[in-house]
């Protein structure tokens, strides 16, 4: 009995009011956990409707980890993953990164294109396009939830995709965190279904100052 297990990660850094995320108060952490919860819930629902499978979700875990340890959350820096990257514009500019281990990405493509499980062994143009569209839909669902919560309007760019080592792909967001601090705040939600074989990791990484905007908008 396999588990369709999707992990959702929400990463933030310190901003004008705090040099590092380790300075966040418990109330602020709770607020971010709730934002992660609502955003991930919306994304999970969207994914569930697309692949037509039930997805259960736990309460997000919030933790602060050294930047160098973030790749371990997705299987280590040399794990082969597919990453969909979107730039987010608006009042709280951010980056979104949706990561899937290679096998999960291939299985998701099988489901999206209507192939047999195991048919996809490498990504062609259509496969990449399908995965980018998933990144698009999940980001849209997430940002909609964020809007309902904060009334901050955010618009995602068109997505870009890369298949490579997790460390290399994560470096895109970790480097930006590195300018502001040495730790990442990770809000992690696991999705589960009775089916097998898919894991996903969703990162939202606000620009400097955006965390302040978000926390102010929710009144903490």
């Amino acid at each position, binding site marked *: 009995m396999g588990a369709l297990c999707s992990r959702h990660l929400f990463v933030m850094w310190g901003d004008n009011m705090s040099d590092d995320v380790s300075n966040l108060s418990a109330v602020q952490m709770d607020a971010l956990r709730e934002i992660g919860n609502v955003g991930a819930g919306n994304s999970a629902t969207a994914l569930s409707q697309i692949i037509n499978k039930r997805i259960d979700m736990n309460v997000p875990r919030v933790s602060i980890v050294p930047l160098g340890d973030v*790749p371990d959350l997705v299987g280590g820096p040399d794990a082969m993953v597919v990453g969909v990257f979107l730039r987010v514009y608006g009042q709280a500019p951010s980056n979104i990164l949706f990561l899937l281990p290679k096998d999960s990405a291939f299985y998701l493509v099988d489901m999206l294109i209507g192939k047999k499980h195991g048919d996809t062994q490498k990504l062609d143009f259509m496969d990449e396009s399908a995965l980018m569209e998933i990144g698009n839909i999940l980001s849209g669902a997430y940002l909609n939830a964020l809007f309902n919560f904060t009334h901050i309007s955010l618009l995602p760019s068109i997505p*870009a995709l*890369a298949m490579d*080592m997790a460390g*290399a792909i994560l*470096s895109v967001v970790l*480097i930006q965190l590195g300018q502001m601090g040495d730790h990442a705040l990770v809000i992690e939600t696991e999705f589960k279904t009775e089916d097998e074989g898919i894991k996903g990791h969703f990162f939202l990484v606000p620009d400097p100052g955006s965390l302040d905007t978000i926390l102010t908008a929710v009144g903490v």
Partner: protein
Amino acid sequence: MADLIKVGMADFKVSRSPATIISYGLGSCIGVSLYDPQTKIGGLLHIMLPDSKQSRATDNPAKFADTGIPLMLDEVLKMGASRSRLVAKMAGGAQMFAFANATDVMRVGSRNVAASKEILQKLGIRLVGEDTGANYGRTVQIDLTNGVYTVKTIDKGNKTI
């Protein structure tokens, strides 16, 4: 089997033959190595950013080219390497995602390459091998028995520099 020493992001390690120092999954980051072929002492540094002066979090000097390279230099000299014999190699500095209107942050790979070269030049250390740029990840290692720097990729093959 000789020691395999791992270097994480924003960190460095120094050692001597017969150890091999490795760092996994570099994207825009750079793996800078220093090596003295006579004493077979060397080090590998995994930097994330070019310039500590443009950052607000400077607690960890190994994160930046401008502070990390001098720090590793000090350590290999302390172990007994000769400054005049030291040679440098480096790999990484990719841009993982292509965007038409890439911001400065997206182009950090090429800025890391430029900053590392500038620092090495200032310190008077010869750069004898380089595999930088492009759009793919690299796992890098230096074998301290012979100074061979190996770059491994997922589907662009492996090379030594």
